[in-house]
């Protein structure tokens, strides 16, 4: 059997385009259901996917970066570091990658939630070129993504500004090695007491992450006092928008936790 362990992105893309392969980041999700017939395209030694760099607008996170790489990196935004540090346990964080976390397609992906709430952009590269896709357009359903057969997720672009004031809570059954039962993240940016940006995202409650820019828009341009006055309206809109499915915990539990976390986020910003 051939072993596909490319040591350059070019080589990885050539194999991806010419063979039916399963991209392998760190293996920590894939190997749970190890498939004897699987032909893996190992990406753990592709240098172009291991970098964390900044340009004028973005922090660019290589899809092959492990959670440990992110925790130890100076450029990685604090909100991403916090979520990464709560993933599983050290041995999983040493191998699990953000690219794998996203491409696995799960709404429970801890870093996926962060990339949603930060409106991150995925750089997908295929045999015919590359495309920049907002993460919200990448997920088509549970475990379904718009990644084409010849494509690889190479980088995730996170905004350099507006992410400092964040809120993140992961609810699991225990501290370590926990799969999220509900996860919630939010960012809020204000200038002269006026909200300039707000985004919330709910993970692990449905087939895809719930992220509703249209509802969050209610708060944009408001002062904290004005936002407080429309708080009930805002909460009502989410009360309708959040329709969790039953998993290891009931839909009712998930709903209650979501609304509690949303309220706590608002209160922590004096709304």
């Amino acid at each position, binding site marked *: 059997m051939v072993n596909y362990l490319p040591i350059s992105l070019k080589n990885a893309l050539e194999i991806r385009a010419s063979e039916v392969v399963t991209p392998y980041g760190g293996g*920590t999700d894939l190997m749970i259901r190890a498939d004897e017939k699987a032909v893996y395209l*190992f990406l753990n030694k592709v240098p172009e996917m291991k970098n964390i760099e900044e340009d004028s607008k973005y922090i660019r996170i290589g899809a092959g970066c492990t959670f440990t790489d992110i925790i130890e990196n100076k450029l990685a935004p604090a909100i991403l570091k916090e979520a990464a540090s709560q993933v599983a346990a050290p041995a999983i964080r040493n191998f699990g990658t953000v690219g794998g976390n996203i491409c696995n397609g799960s709404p429970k992906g801890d870093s996926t939630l962060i990339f949603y709430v930060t409106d991150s952009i995925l750089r997908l590269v295929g045999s015919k070129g590359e495309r920049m896709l907002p993460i919200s357009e990448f997920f088509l359903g549970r475990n379904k993504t718009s990644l084409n057969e010849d494509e690889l997720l190479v980088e995730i672009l996170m905004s350099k500004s507006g992410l400092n004031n964040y809120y993140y809570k992961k609810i699991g059954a225990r501290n370590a090695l926990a799969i999220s039962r509900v996860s919630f993240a939010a960012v809020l940016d204000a200038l002269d007491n006026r909200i300039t940006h707000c985004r919330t995202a709910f993970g692990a409650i449905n087939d895809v992450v719930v992220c509703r820019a249209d509802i969050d828009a209610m708060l944009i341009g408001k002062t904290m006092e004005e936002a407080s006055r429309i708080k009930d309206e805002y909460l009502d809109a989410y009360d309708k928008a959040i329709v969790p499915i039953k998993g290891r915990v009931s839909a009712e539990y998930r709903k209650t936790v979501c609304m509690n976390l949303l309220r706590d986020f608002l209160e922590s910003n004096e709304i």
Partner: protein
Amino acid sequence: MINFILNGKEAVSNAKANERLLDVLRGEFKLTGVKCGCKEGECGACSVIIDGKLANSCMVAMGSLEGSAVVTIEGYRETDRFHILDKAYASVSAVQCGFCIPGMILASECILSRNPSPTEAEIREGISGNLCRCTGYNAIVDAIDIAAKEGKGLW
């Protein structure tokens, strides 16, 4: 054929690229100190060190390892650091059934090699992926703390 370094020596595996490192270590190389607990990355019994990092060998496919260095308890037990940990674990009876211990020792090594003077919280974080169903962890945490003090300069 996969070429890698196993316990400091060059090794060649005839395994397929998609086989688990855990199965290959136990089956092909007869390194049975690597224990199989869950095959889901949840228990840490199969812990090994790959390129200096703690890993669950059940979650690693052989093909990803070409050129990498793997250390199991069988290799680690030949080191001075192991003897400090061995003595420390014994001194506080941190071992009961022993099934988790090969993984626990390698997790201890990874804590101390990154941070020779860890706090209790850092020790607990470092072994958070290694489950022990006998001891209740306190003795293991004490043992790692003792090893940090007794092994000054080794890490």
